[in-house]
């Protein structure tokens, strides 16, 4: 069984505090994403507590994506783009599911937890129509 990411292309990320990763939408990939987010420690201006929240929220959203992808004949790939924007950390997860964004159920326990840990969590149609989940974390929040 092969899990494929799309073929190589010209890198589109130039912000030095950002990254993009494309992975098979399978359970093992969730740990890869969580591990990558942990690598931003000391580079993103966030507290240890907020970085922990970011890792949990990203894990929950990716797990939800993987669960939906597992219902398809071929799981497909998910794409995660993460970086800093003004006073926020913004992480976007592109769902490989060909279904409409409405198929993302915001009342799923994982999505509820992720929403509770973010300043905002939005589900919109991405450029290709697939669901695009955007998580925003305020870095200037004094409570964190």
């Amino acid at each position, binding site marked *: *069984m*092969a*899990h*494929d*990411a*799309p073929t*190589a*292309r*010209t*890198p*589109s*990320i*130039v*912000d*030095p*505090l*950002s*990254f*993009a*990763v*494309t*992975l*098979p939408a*399978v359970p*093992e*990939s969730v*740990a*890869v994403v969580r*591990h*990558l987010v*942990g*690598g*931003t420690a000391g*580079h993103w201006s966030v507290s240890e507590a907020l970085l922990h929240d970011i890792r949990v929220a990203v894990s929950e959203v990716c797990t939800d994506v993987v669960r939906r992808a597992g219902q398809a004949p071929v799981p497909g790939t998910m794409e995660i783009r993460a970086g800093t924007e003004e006073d926020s950390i913004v992480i976007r997860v592109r769902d490989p599911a060909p279904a409409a964004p409405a198929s993302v159920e915001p009342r799923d326990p994982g999505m509820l937890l992720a929403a509770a840990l973010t300043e905002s969590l939005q589900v919109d149609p991405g450029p290709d129509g697939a669901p695009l989940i955007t998580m925003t974390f305020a870095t200037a929040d004094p409570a964190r």
Partner: protein
Amino acid sequence: MSTPESIVRARLELPAGPLARPLAHRFVMALGVQTALPVDRVQEAAMAAETIVHLYTTHTSARAVELTVRAEPDRLHLRFSGLGPDGAIRLLAADASGSPPDVLRTLSSALDVSSGSSGDQALVLVVAAA
């Protein structure tokens, strides 16, 4: 994913900057532990990735590079693309004259340079069980 016939392909886009080395290391480690390679070889693959990232930021004009990892049961293929014209050649020359020299050849089982139609070069490194 851990079954003998499994193959995983994943891609990381890395900007030239402070995140590049830690993320390249973590990416290769996280995918490498899904193979049957000994952990010291996975660690060496991650070190090679870090070395390449360091060299590309200091010896090429690339502002960002793309690392594609193919994880097979007994080996890791690391492909660094977007190095620019002659970027991979310059990178290997810098490695050969570095201190210590030839780190990439020492750590890898195979090294190859490929060029696209635009002249943009990629460096392909394979790490297999010793």
